[in-house]
């Protein structure tokens, strides 16, 4: 038996990805769990392991191919039945042919090539996260019970009509059923609230104006946007163009905390080294408890503020491929030691791009620490749908007048950018001050947190 290796479901809402590396060749013997290929989705590279021992019979994709979740990527000949090398009976070939044989996921390749409105297919919200199927031959009672115009509408919207439940007599699928399917699926993906138009903007290209011909002024080269860059461009562009943001600056006196940190690290091994970021995660978690509006999201469509009863803090991690933001769960319920350990582990995995997209979902607040790089201050951009983000710059020794003399103090510049629709200026200032005071006097955490 040849076993089909399919792209597994990696995370809710992830519908497709790009093959970035194929680790095996046709004819290779593979073991259980050996990596067959690497697959880049929204924000992670996922290694697809072999489910069993066997031999690679066929590879249906190439590096760079865009492949939907669920598509067959390889055929594996199980080690147990070498007899299957015998020519495949004709009938079997026939059955496979209209599906996938020969052409790796032909439907997508074709749709993309030929269809100018491809965002419809890309934004495709279907639950099973598959591209619509234009390949399968269906006739008669195997065709969905919907009028031809409704079937065409579904194709245009990128909806697999075979997933739509008809509400009409005898299960007939109406135009309304197809539109409802799109609405419900979009709601599930966007977490309810406003329903974006199905034909939305192309991600990452908000308000792109025609570009000049750069080559007029000298030589240029072009490189494709990585998936991370594309998503970052989209997220940042969306945030910048929709959120009125204010940045509040302040300085925290961290001499004592830094001394404690260095003392602690003298005894620590690399895994549990305490970083300033880990301390900041804890301080911010406490601050968010004290100021719940900073832990919210704005739902304008239903005119509500969504207040989250959990505190998940995202930490921006600089990786060779671009900025990624893994999330530390329930930061308010964990000690600094635990947070430090988790943060070190997660940051390491992120740099190696070995974390799943789910680790990067669900953050309620973000910290971007550029202290290790340098600089006196910067304005971070809110990571929608969050409402605030803390930027951290390099701490420097500065003289401070203590009333009698100048004393050296380690001063860390902080910048808080917040969504001014949700947070007023005075609250922004208070929140950041709270953080600074907690850093200056950590006892505050216990007193108030």
């Amino acid at each position: 038996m040849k076993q089909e290796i399919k792209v597994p479901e990696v995370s809710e809402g992830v519908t497709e990805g790009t093959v970035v590396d194929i680790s095996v060749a046709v004819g290779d013997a593979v073991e259980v769990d050996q990596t067959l290929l690497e697959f880049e989705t929204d924000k992670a590279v996922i290694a697809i392991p072999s489910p069993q021992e066997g031999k690679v019979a066929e590879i249906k994709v190439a590096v760079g191919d865009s492949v939907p979740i669920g598509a067959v990527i390889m055929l594996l000949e199980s080690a147990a039945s070498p007899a299957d090398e015998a020519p495949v009976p004709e009938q079997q070939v026939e059955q496979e042919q209209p599906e996938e044989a020969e052409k790796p996921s032909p439907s997508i390749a074709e749709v993309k090539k030929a269809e100018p409105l491809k965002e419809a297919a890309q934004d495709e919200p279907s639950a099973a996260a598959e591209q619509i199927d234009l390949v399968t031959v269906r006739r008669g009672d195997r065709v969905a019970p919907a009028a031809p115009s409704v079937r065409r509408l579904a194709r245009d919207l990128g909806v697999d009509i075979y997933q739509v439940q008809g509400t009409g007599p005898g299960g007939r699928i109406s135009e309304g059923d197809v539109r409802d399917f799109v609405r419900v699926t979009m709601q599930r993906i966007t977490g309810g609230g406003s329903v974006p138009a199905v034909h939305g903007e192309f991600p990452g290209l908000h308000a792109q104006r025609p570009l000049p011909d750069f080559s007029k002024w000298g030589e240029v080269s072009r490189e494709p946007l990585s998936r991370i860059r594309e998503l970052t461009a989209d997220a940042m562009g969306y945030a910048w163009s929709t959120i009125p943001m204010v940045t509040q600056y302040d300085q925290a006196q961290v001499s004592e905390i830094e001394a404690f940190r260095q003392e602690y690290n003298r005894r620590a091994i690399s895994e549990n080294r305490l970083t300033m970021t880990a301390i900041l995660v804890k301080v911010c978690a406490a601050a968010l408890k004290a100021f719940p509006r900073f832990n919210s999201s704005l739902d304008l469509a239903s005119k509500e503020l969504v207040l989250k009863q959990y505190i998940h803090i995202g930490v921006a991690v600089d990786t060779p491929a671009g900025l990624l933001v893994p999330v530390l769960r329930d930061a308010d319920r964990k000690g600094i030691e635990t947070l430090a350990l988790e943060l070190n582990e997660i940051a390491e995995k992120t740099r190696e791009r070995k974390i799943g997209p789910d680790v990067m979902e669900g953050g309620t607040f973000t910290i971007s620490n550029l202290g290790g790089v340098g600089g006196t201050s910067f304005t971070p951009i809110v990571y929608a749908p969050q409402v605030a983000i803390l930027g951290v710059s390099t701490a420097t020794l500065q003289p401070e007048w203590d009333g009698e003399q100048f004393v050296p103090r380690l001063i860390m510049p902080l910048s808080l950018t917040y969504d001014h629709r949700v947070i007023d200026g005075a609250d922004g200032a208070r929140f950041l001050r709270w953080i600074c005071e907690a850093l200056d006097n950590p006892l505050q955490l216990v007193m108030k947190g």
Partner: protein
Amino acid sequence: MSQSSEIPEKAQLVIIGAGPGGYAAAFRATELGQDVTLIDPEANPGGVCLHRGCIPSKALLHVAKLVSEAEESKEIGVTFARPEIDLDRVRTWKDEVVGKLTGGLGSKVGKMKITYVRGMAKFKDARCLTVKTTDGIVGEMVFEQAILATGSRPIMLPGVAAESERIIDSTGALEIADVPASLLVVGGGYIGLELGSVYAALGSKVSVVEMTDGLLPGCDRDLVSVLKRRLDKKFESIMLNTRVEEIKEQKNGVMVSMADNRKETTKKRFDKVLIAIGRKPNTESLGLDKTSVKLDKKGFVEVDGQMRTAEAHIFAIGDIAGEPMLAHKAYGEANVAAEAAAGRKAVFDPRAIPAVVFTDPEIAWCGLTETEARERKIKVKTAKLPWRGNGRTLTLGRDDGMTKLIVDPETDRVLGVAVAGPGAGELIAEGVLAMEMAVVSEDLRKSIHPHPTLSETIYDAAEMLFKG
């Protein structure tokens, strides 16, 4: 029309074959902005359907209908003299009908600025064709996309000379060179029965020999029996379960030896023999071996839901793309292929493809048949309404006919519609619409049908299923 005297070097979309599939694809693709080159050996588009199939046979069946109605009108008090048949005039009229239609298509091709190359094409490789015009010019044409629509041709019995005047196929029969005193039709399918009916009306003694145990294999038996009752009167004999063992052309006729299922062999002499045992797709001369296009076991080109072959830029439609080999299926596929070629997300997913046998009475069906439901073990509920009680049937001087609805017993959704009787071919269109719209029988029952018409039989059949 704008026939190209030379072979264009390049084509954005080349369509090989200008039958119903080919010309429909050419028109649709042109509408969608494609630059189309259409290649066919005939002077005008039309293919087998117009030149040697649907259209000429229906013209002749009209003649047959006039003859038999004149004959039967004695029953209702109108007696005509025995009809005189001017065979040359009949043939000319039939050719005029064909000429009008194909000429009309030709001028539409011209108006739409489609490049029409009269000739044959063959793949040099998957991106280039070798084209030979009927004037003998040979050239090469590079194309971006292609649609294959080369149709099908009648199958001859093995060992029979193709050029025979007494042993003919459907093409020869439609020429009506003469009206033989006796005609044997080999094959009880729709082509044999339609052409047999024509010759019977023109005065031939027609016999039919069929290998299986019934006429129109695949069609539900209750429908066939409506037809057979009448054909038994019109035809000399209908021999079922009988195999043609040998056909020998002699000076004054054709000697045919036939064996029935008890292996008893009989020999009979006929003036002419019509071979109507099926059709096969025209794929051999296309040079498909120069491409990756694949054929299935029956010789049809394998296609996907968009009518794409294994070469994604080459489509195949119509008879070469599989059963049923019907012009209206080709039309449907043509539109899908043309739209897909123009980048649209079209899919060929008919819920029903109607089949019509233009005998008298006609038989037509679409969707699921009872035969298929039994084979596939699908539970169905049926309503069968004989036409005896229908006002319009009786006022036409007829009492034979039946309308059948096949529905899902749980959802009441219509799964199949079948009609036997005069005008069945027109009535089935309502069934096709019902199937495509996924109606339940209540929808048919609550649509007001005009009275008195044969279409009321659909309404009445739906009422048999309707409760509440």
